């Protein structure tokens, strides 16, 4: 075959493939097009997929019931994904593409705070409602974005629970703490929250360091070991925490307690660290053991956990629950305003107004967004629980009356287990 024949043939083939893969179904009843920006590749792809599971479970549940019931009809939802590749710049591009080209009605937000902070100005610019089910940085709410909401409380609301429990509920009480935080929009604030709550509780912070992601953490842990704190608190996502705990074990450094946020509630953390995950503290705003009752299809945390386990083969953690709850919040607000797809600008603004007034009870707990203050548009209905891994399970250990099982303290040396 001659070389010049290749080009038209290749083009023809591509077009044919494109046609075969493209939409061939006739347009049925209108659906809500929901844009999802999250990390499906890159450093944060684990967390990105965690949020994806939460959002997918909401969409699948809605669609299995025939769709969202509005004015006698049912409208299905269609999730359109935009991969942010774990980078804020790509997140902004993905949001822009979903809004201008895919013409989505509203947006479910990214996993990480850095990417969320890049998406929020875009949804602001195009006036598209946006709820994040995962991002925890308090920075997001301080900027008072009109179109951005969050079902998960800010990290400085969640993370202190474990420190409070350690400061008040264990004997002999710890006196010193070292805090390591990873340098990103979420982890830095997690570390700051550990530091602030420790100081409030009268603990002495002997070391506070922000370190870059992706480093070899042995020198950092060596420096912490030299400071000899009672508590090591790690503000990071799951991967960095796992690597730091591995490094601590290699260096034979066993403080009386290790506190971590966020990651110890994910199944991968338990699986990756195995027995070394034992005794590690963390905090959460939702566990399957809580007694919430809601009007949504899941109703209770236990039921949600059961459905989730059946679909994905692992138990859910609070990020997945909060992501599903973000969908529920949109669904409730849409029903209230009775808007049908596609939403025009007036309806999108009405949706934001409805979200501001929203006060619903779900399997995830109450959802009520603040309309003023430092947590503007963040869910303020939930309280934080201290957790610990005991016997390969995550149990509620405080603070105070939220305790189900007593915390185990101090943590034994690595060699005495």
């Amino acid at each position, binding site marked *: 075959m001659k070389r010049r024949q290749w080009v038209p043939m290749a083009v023809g083939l591509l077009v044919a493939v494109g046609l075969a893969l493209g939409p061939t179904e006739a347009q049925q009843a209108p659906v809500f097009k929901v844009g999802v920006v999250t990390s*499906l*590749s890159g450093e944060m792809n684990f967390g990105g997929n965690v949020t994806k599971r939460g959002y997918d479970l909401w969409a699948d549940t809605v669609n299995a019931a025939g769709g969202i019931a509005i004015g006698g009809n049912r409208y299905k939802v269609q999730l359109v994904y935009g991969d942010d590749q774990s980078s804020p710049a790509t997140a902004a591009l993905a949001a822009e593409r979903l809004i201008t080209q895919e013409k989505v009605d509203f947006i479910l937000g990214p996993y990480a705070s850095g990417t969320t902070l890049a998406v929020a100005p875009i949804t602001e610019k195009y006036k598209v409602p946006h709820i994040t089910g995962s991002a925890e940085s308090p920075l997001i709410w301080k900027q008072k974005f009109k179109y951005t909401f969050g079902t998960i409380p800010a990290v400085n609301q969640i993370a202190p629970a474990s420190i409070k429990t350690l400061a008040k509920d264990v004997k002999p009480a710890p006196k010193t703490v070292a805090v390591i935080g990873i340098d990103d929009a979420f982890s830095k604030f997690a570390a700051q929250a550990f530091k602030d709550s420790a100081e409030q509780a009268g603990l002495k912070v002997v070391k506070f*360091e922000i370190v*870059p992601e992706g480093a070899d953490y042995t020198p950092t842990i060596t420096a912490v070991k030299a400071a000899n704190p009672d508590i090591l608190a790690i503000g990071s996502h799951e991967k960095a925490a*796992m690597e730091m705990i591995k490094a601590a074990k290699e260096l034979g450094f066993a403080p009386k307690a290790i506190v971590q946020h966020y990651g110890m509630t994910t199944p991968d953390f338990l699986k990756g660290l195995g027995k070394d995950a034992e005794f590690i503290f963390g905090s959460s705003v939702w566990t399957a053991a809580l007694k919430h009752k809601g009007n949504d299809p899941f109703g209770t945390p236990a039921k949600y956990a059961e459905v989730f386990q059946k679909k994905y083969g692992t138990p859910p953690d609070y990020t997945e629950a909060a992501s599903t709850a973000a969908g529920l919040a949109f669904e409730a607000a849409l029903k209230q305003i009775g808007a049908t797809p596609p939403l025009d600008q007036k309806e999108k603004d009405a949706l934001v107004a409805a979200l501001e007034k929203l006060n619903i009870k779900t399997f995830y707990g109450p959802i009520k967004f603040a309309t003023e203050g430092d947590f503007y548009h963040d869910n303020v209905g939930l309280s934080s629980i201290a957790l610990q891994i005991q016997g390969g399970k995550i149990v509620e250990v405080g603070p105070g009356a939220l305790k189900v099982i007593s915390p185990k303290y101090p943590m034994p040396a690595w060699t005495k287990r």
Partner: protein
Amino acid sequence: MELFLQTLLDGVLIGGTLVVIAAGFSLCFGVMDVIDFAVGEWVMLGAYTAFWFQEFTGGDPMAALPLFFALFFAGGYLLQPLIQRVTAGKRPHPVLMGLLFTFGLATVAKGSALYFWGFNFRSIRTWLSGQNVQIGITVPSLRFAGFLFGVFATLTFMAFLYWTRTGRAIRATAQDRVTAGLLGVDVRRISALVYAVYAGLTGMAGVLIGALFSIHAGMGLRYTTLAFFVVVLAGMGFVPGVIPAALFMGLLQSLTAVYLGSRYVGLALFGVFYLTLVVAPKGLFGRGS
């Protein structure tokens, strides 16, 4: 004092994890004139292969290191002719072509890993995991084993380069491809052999790195960057310079992290990298090409 000694040891051991990767990378450049952008992906694939090995057999991947070497050796041997094709012949800018092609390989490897192994962070356990020996300072067993392995593998490899006939052919090819070819060296076979050894060594290093850290599709980039740093410091293509250069990089990381703060590690590394390029483009020993 204890902190200082521990910091030095940490640094040496960090360097140790890089030695093998950088040695292979350096030789690959010397012989094939290819800057292999996929070096980190060989590490990643090595780690995932070890994960699978442990998942399916329950065995200790450390015990099966020779098996991984053989596997990656074969993989490299089969892949090399493809790289050869892209970088040889009448194509313009062969170095750039090699860079682009291996960048593509890296992207494909990353995407495939995400597809086949999923997004979860994986871990492997070896009998040395989490162990340590106290001698006043703490010697982490697995890292120490990795260090010994790295230095041993690199020295063996260099012995092969300098004391055998094939080794001499490899060095001749690295010096001058055309002349080596004219004198009867089968340049293609030598190139394939070098790439195979390089892939084998890097895959093995991946097993150790997988046991030390966590395994995920994006883990390779860090090693591509670090291998690049080490090789520039050692002098491009100058294999004997790799061991001191890797140890220097490790010590730099460790000392900066402990005495200045971890946030300055990147600055220190890039600073040295930059200075080397400006002041001593042939590397610390002036022997690079």
